[in-house]
């Protein structure tokens, strides 16, 4: 018979590893599927809206995915998915929408101003600030290259 503490040690040794493999697999599959859905939306718009340019189609696809991500968060499905899928639901742009809607809903009892409008950017704030700052720096660097080279 195995001692209780020994058994616990054995459990601790084996459980996290299988758990970890599982999270890697679900992240891969869910991330891949979300990207395929994005490709499907892109194709749908390309065939049904031939008057739009490639860039507009890409923007429209992003907007649609953000809408879907926000909607699924609002009805409570996205966070449920996220518990199983991890990075697979965080890294796609739908996860960015989720990161905006999820804290905003959580705090909307504190009112529209202090709750929703400010808490929206709890997670998305760092993303937007770093993204815009980096793009401005890149712009200046490429401008200087353009001028001096």
């Amino acid at each position, binding site marked *: 018979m195995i001692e209780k503490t020994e058994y616990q040690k054995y459990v601790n040794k084996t459980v996290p590893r299988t758990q970890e493999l599982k999270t890697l697999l679900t992240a891969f599959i869910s991330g891949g599927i979300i990207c395929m859905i994005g490709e499907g939306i892109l194709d749908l718009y390309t065939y049904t809206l031939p008057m739009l340019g490639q860039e507009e189609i890409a923007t429209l696809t992003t907007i649609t995915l953000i809408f879907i991500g926000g909607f699924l968060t609002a009805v409570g499905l996205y966070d449920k998915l996220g518990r199983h899928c991890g*990075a*697979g639901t965080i890294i796609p742009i739908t996860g960015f929408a989720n990161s905006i*809607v999820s804290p905003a809903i959580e705090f909307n009892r504190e009112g529209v101003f202090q709750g929703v409008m400010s808490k929206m950017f709890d997670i998305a704030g760092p993303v937007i600030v770093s993204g815009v700052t980096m793009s401005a720096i890149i712009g200046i660097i490429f401008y200087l290259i353009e001028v001096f080279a």
Partner: protein
Amino acid sequence: MDIFLRYLQVFVVGGLVCFIGQILINKTKMTSARILVLFLTLGVVLEAVGAFRYIKEFGSSGITVPIVGFGANLAKGAIDGAKYGIIPAVVGGMQKAAGGLTAAIVFGFIFSVVSKSKTKRM
């Protein structure tokens, strides 16, 4: 068959990006904000060195749907703007990413206001 192969490429590339992200989460216990910023930065760097175009040719939505694509978009706007002057260079990123940002803020706001917070219902 062509279309099947393309969707497979999208699946594999998109899956791999999230797979790498999950490894980082498992190993470093990073929060989702840090993960998002890291992959956004990756996109900015890939676009700045010119590698993003080739990944996009192969993986299409597999690389543009992850936040990496958003970062690449920001950088591309800035790089394109740099040809026309300093102001277009600085604001170009925001211009290019305006659609996604506007959608995220407006839809995010509407969805958050109309849905009730879970703790309130108790």
